[in-house]
């Protein structure tokens, strides 16, 4: 085991710095992107291309009054926004950005990611419950049901990849994709993981816990100032995390033709999926809550199990042939 060398600390610091900035930059990218897709201008006043909107937004969030409602459960209310940021940042620990650029290459990396994403559900549940507000509570209950359900398919859809790579370690999974990226043999797994990823980060087609037209803002109705900012940033880091995971698991991670360094390939692929996340927000209507659950349990779960069984069967059959 390697000791904490300066190089190692540099990677930790670098990952932390890049992720926090990516989350902030995504605010601008998303607002401009949405404006582009919907044929309007978006924020274009502050600075070149409206880039300073990020600074304006952050300053506004930092200086807003940080109000805790008197009827709220104070310790839990304060704890909830921290959980979302901590769990998402912890997940970045296992992602291999390029050969050697990984904070901790755990041999249970994939399970660690799943564990952290299931812990992330607590931020919604506790935040909504501690707010002591019926809209928040409704949002929290929807969030709990949605995340628990979609976690099941998320984990199962990845098991096909694990079977093909023969390891839970993310860098070994990337190395196993040298011959062929896994999204070709695992196309069903990829689609289901993508859908479950949107549901886990409660992004727009599935943002039912915070559906503003029914629930005001759902679980974070009572949050203001930087505590709201944590939920906000947590969501953007969540979609960055899901994009990174999609790239690592299904699109060959840092692999790519030699004319660009590995890290650039990783960033390009991740940026592509971030763009898809934003495009989805611009173009998809929100399903009803029962439709979402029905869709998950009646279609995605059987499909995932089928994918797993077929993958395992084909792998066994190929091994027999050899």
């Amino acid at each position, binding site marked *: 085991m390697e000791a904490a060398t300066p190089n190692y600390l540099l990677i930790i610091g670098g990952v932390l710095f890049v992720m926090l900035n990516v989350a902030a930059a995504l605010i601008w990218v998303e607002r401009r992107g949405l404006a582009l897709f919907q044929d309007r201008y978006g924020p274009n006043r502050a600075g070149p291309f409206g880039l300073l909107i990020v600074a304006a937004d952050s300053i506004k969030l930092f200086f807003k009054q940080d109000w805790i409602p008197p009827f709220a459960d104070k310790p839990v209310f304060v704890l909830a926004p921290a959980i979302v940021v901590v769990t998402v940042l912890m997940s970045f620990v296992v992602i291999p950005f390029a050969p050697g650029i990984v904070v901790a290459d755990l*041999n*249970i990396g994939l399970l660690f990611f799943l564990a952290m994403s299931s812990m992330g*559900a607590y931020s919604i549940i506790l935040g909504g419950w501690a707010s002591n507000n019926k809209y928040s509570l409704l949002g929290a209950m929807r969030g709990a049901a949605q995340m628990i359900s979609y976690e099941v398919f998320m984990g199962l859809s990845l098991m096909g990849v694990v079977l093909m790579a023969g390891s839970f370690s993310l860098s070994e999974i990337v190395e196993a994709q040298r011959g062929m990226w896994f999204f070709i043999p695992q196309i069903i797994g990829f689609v289901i993981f993508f859908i479950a990823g949107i549901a886990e980060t409660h992004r727009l087609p599935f943002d039912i816990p915070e559906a503003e037209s029914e629930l005001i803002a759902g679980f974070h109705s009572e949050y203001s100032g930087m505590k709201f900012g944590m939920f906000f940033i947590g969501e953007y880091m969540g979609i960055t995390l899901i994009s990174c995971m999609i790239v690592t698991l299904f699109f060959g991670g840092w692999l790519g033709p030699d004319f660009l360094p590995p890290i650039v390939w990783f960033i390009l692929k991740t940026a592509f999926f971030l763009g898809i996340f934003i495009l989805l927000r611009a173009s998809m209507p929100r399903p009803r809550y029962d439709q979402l659950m029905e869709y998950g349990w009646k279609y995605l779960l059987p499909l995932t199990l089928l994918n797993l069984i077929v993958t395992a069967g084909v792998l066994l059959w190929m091994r027999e042939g050899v």
Partner: protein
Amino acid sequence: MEITFYIAATVAVLATVMVITRYNMIHALLYLVVSFLAVAVVFLTMGAPFMAALEVIVYAGAIVVLIIFVIMMLSLTREDVEQEKAWLQPKLWIGPALLSFVLLAELVYLLAIAEVPTAPSVASYVDAQAVGLALYGPYVLGVQLSGILLMAGIVGAYHLGRQKKKVIHRFLQQQEPQKERSAAL
């Protein structure tokens, strides 16, 4: 590794004590999550990373969320906390505490006379593959029994959720007989 084990074990014990003594159910469950996380760290230090990950995913991530889900539906209020306080008088602790003290003394005695095993380190490292081979090798009966148990649970849940409440909109309620008559004609 030894010191991380003792820290995690202490956290687990303290968190579990807090679970029992909290009056507010959600706070108790939060401590339960901490306790599960601490147990996961204990697994990790004992050389079972796969078990540690599953402990977090299954217990801390799924089961406690489901319990919280149910508790949120019950909508506990201040009065419930008061009632809990009234039920859990300090003098109720005396009997169980005395009895478990006897057990603790026995446990300490047994640990004291037991031979000290060599520190479990890299030698007893159990990875995911070893867990799978053990489950589908010598312990396959246990896997199948738990499968049957889960199946019974699913069938039971299906049976409870099957009766769908039939709600007819008030406009349709009046039209319903007319429609039938026209169909009969």
